[in-house]
């Protein structure tokens, strides 16, 4: 089956089993390996990408569910005004150790700040609570979000 995917600003015609979870198409057919497979069970958040501006998990939902949606992966965030600001803030705060959960975190934070430019701490926690980090970079991720919020309100 052919699926039309808009990924990082480019349209792709993809030949795939329609039951294929989105992540395998992104990683193996489009080479977007920044999207990470953590559990394949929608439990850890590592595979988060943005679809039509919302954060979505890509490890279970099938590629056919994304026909026509606009997907932005971690690789596409560099060209995204808010996404690149979030990335710079993560770098400035050294908000990663091994980095495996990081692309999912960055995507989630970008979606959050797109919807709520000045989120409260409970709103941040609600957005990030589906994301696991084993190295313990949590406090730095909070700081990175505060940094972006401060930057945007001073701009």
């Amino acid at each position, binding site marked *: 089956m052919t699926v039309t995917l808009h990924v990082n600003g480019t349209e792709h015609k993809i030949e795939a089993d329609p039951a294929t979870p989105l992540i*395998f198409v992104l*990683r193996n057919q489009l*080479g977007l390996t920044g999207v990470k497979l953590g559990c394949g069970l929608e439990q850890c958040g590592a595979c988060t990408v943005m679809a039509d501006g919302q954060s979505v998990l890509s490890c279970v939902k099938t590629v056919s569910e994304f026909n026509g949606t606009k997907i932005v992966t971690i690789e596409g965030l560099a060209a995204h005004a808010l996404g690149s600001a979030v990335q710079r803030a993560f770098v400035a705060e050294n908000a990663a*150790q091994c980095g495996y959960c990081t692309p999912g975190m960055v995507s989630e934070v970008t979606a959050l700040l797109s919807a709520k430019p000045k989120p409260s701490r409970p709103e941040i926690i609600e957005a990030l609570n589906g994301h*696991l980090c*084993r190295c313990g970079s*949590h*406090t730095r991720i909070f700081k990175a979000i505060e940094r972006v919020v401060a930057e945007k309100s001073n701009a």
Partner: protein
Amino acid sequence: MPNGSLVKQPNLDQWLAIGADGRVLVRTGKVDIGQRISTALTLIAAEELDIDPTRIDIAAVETDVAPDEGVTSGSNSMEESGDAVRRATATARKHLLALAARQLGVAEDALDIVDGLIRARATNRSITYAELAGGKPFGIPVDQTAKTKDPKSFKHVGTRVTARGMADLVGGSAKYVHDMQMPGMLHARVVRPPHYHATLAKLDDAKFKSAGLGIVRDGSFLAVAGPDEYAVLKGAERLAAAATWDRGKGLPEGDLFKNLTANERVSLPVIKGSPVKEAVPALPAPPANAAVTHQARYERPYNMHGTIGPSAALAKFENGQMTVWTHSQGIYVLREAMAEALDMPIEAIRVIHAIGAGCYGHNGADDVALDAALVARANPGKPVLLKWTRDDEHAWEPYTTAMVMELQASLDASGKVLAWSHESYGDTHNMRPRSTGNKSGAARLLAARYLADPVPPPVATPSMGHHVGIHRNQEPLYTFDNQRLVKNLVRGLPLRTSAMRTLGAYANVFALESFIDELAEAGGLDPIALRIRNLADQRAIDVIEACNTALNRDKKPAGYGRGFGFARYKNQKTYCAVGIEVSVNDAAEVKLHRCVIAADAGEIVDRDGIAAQMEGGVLQAASWTLYEEVKYDRDGITSRDWDSYPILRFDNVPEIETILMERPGAPFLGAGEASSGPAAGAIANAIKDATGLRLRRLPFTPEAIRAAAYR
């Protein structure tokens, strides 16, 4: 003291190369597992060579190319590789200055170095490192006594920098093993038995429609491979359905904590941190002048490393040569074990490190390398990327053992500890694939025990080293009189275990630091004062006081509890004190509010990196302490995903303040495992302060708190 890594690899060319373009390549045997060793080595090399850190590369760690520095573990990397690179780069600096002096016709002390350019002050003539040594071997040994820089002149060491590779991690361009792609590459998955002791009885090939997928079967080792990853995943599910397993007797059942102190065991007294092969002394009667004698028993369950990215490896077998890309912590030891398991000569195997998700010790990384190699051997010429699933990693990684700690102590009225006994019980912490011949390395790789010609898992022997395994941090840093320390390696326990961050130190420090608070209470003494009363090491006292002062800067909110824990990791690495403020809500959940960490890691190189290790260590230990327990029954492991094995999430992350002691010129002290044990003690003591409940069995779940409240 001579550096062991340099004794083994004495030549400067084994550590350092200057390219024709002036870039500096630093070689190390330690791998970066997210703990920023490559950042620290960059800062050290930049400092000694007076070159901008952006012009320094850290070589990929690969067999036959990288220095053999054993395993990246034990918080040893700075003391081994950090110190080696410092001495190597100091040697290079001295050598380059001598060459420049000759070339420029001036004395060495008339030269300055600015970013790899050596300049004669009087004449302004100059020459670059590249012109002097670019693309050429040094051909000299590392001078272990080479003069290193005066800390007063440091420009890089000790500064706050962005970690090496951070932009790639955050931008998604960092290539993990999982992300490697090669022409003709096959994906592969393993189909596992239901539990450790099951064997493959029957494979109904008719049930498994292969559709372009290849099966690899060797005894009870079963895998599926093909070009499309999703098709392989589905194929693995179908193959699992086609397999019939002989389940045998299953996993041994019974009360784990009872068995830990009742089963057959090897018991050894521990003297000054090391076990001795002598009879265990009986627990003596309390001294006559004891004002207080107290005893308690503490327990920790099995825990898992819980990497966020399940282990993966890429292997290629071609012309009798096996090449493996792995996120193992020990490429040389893995190669030896794989040579035994594959029955290949060591020279025919090349092992290359590529990054993986954080491992926190011996997880599935080594096992998956053999899995991938077995599939690659059956598919010559084709690269095979084999990934463990979440289920594989949760159910098959070598856990950290459950432990029991039994403590007894006597105090005099002044708070002097007159007698101290600490017995620790557990399974092995040392099953990394290190070979001592006779296929002992292969025996430690999971797949080897399932092959048609199996290598059975080895019987653990007690680790006899200083502060290793079960007895790590059992010896108190406190100056307690009449210490009786005993390690017990227990037989007949149900789960596969090996090294996880801190080995036995987390459980021992949890017990020790909880018990000191209990003693203080029993003796009517202040717990901080009791610790300091029994310490002679001023650096220990300094971190305790710094942490305690910051923790109690403000008045404690009503209903909150504060607790404190301290240890010096292995009694020889970083000193770390942790203070924590908690409350327990109506749902009996422990909420972490504020945390203060004070640490003395010797001379600070990567300032923010040390802070990150302290913070990450506390949060990971908080997760072990509050949430984690590997569960199992006769049919196998039942903790198989993040719902059945929950870990810390963002909704219980405290504010953290980290204080680093300044010790310029002091030796580096490994920092990667220092805060875990103190965090556990601090949380237990804070819960006691908040609720009056003394919890002695981990984890401190709402069920555990309710049970303690109604006891």
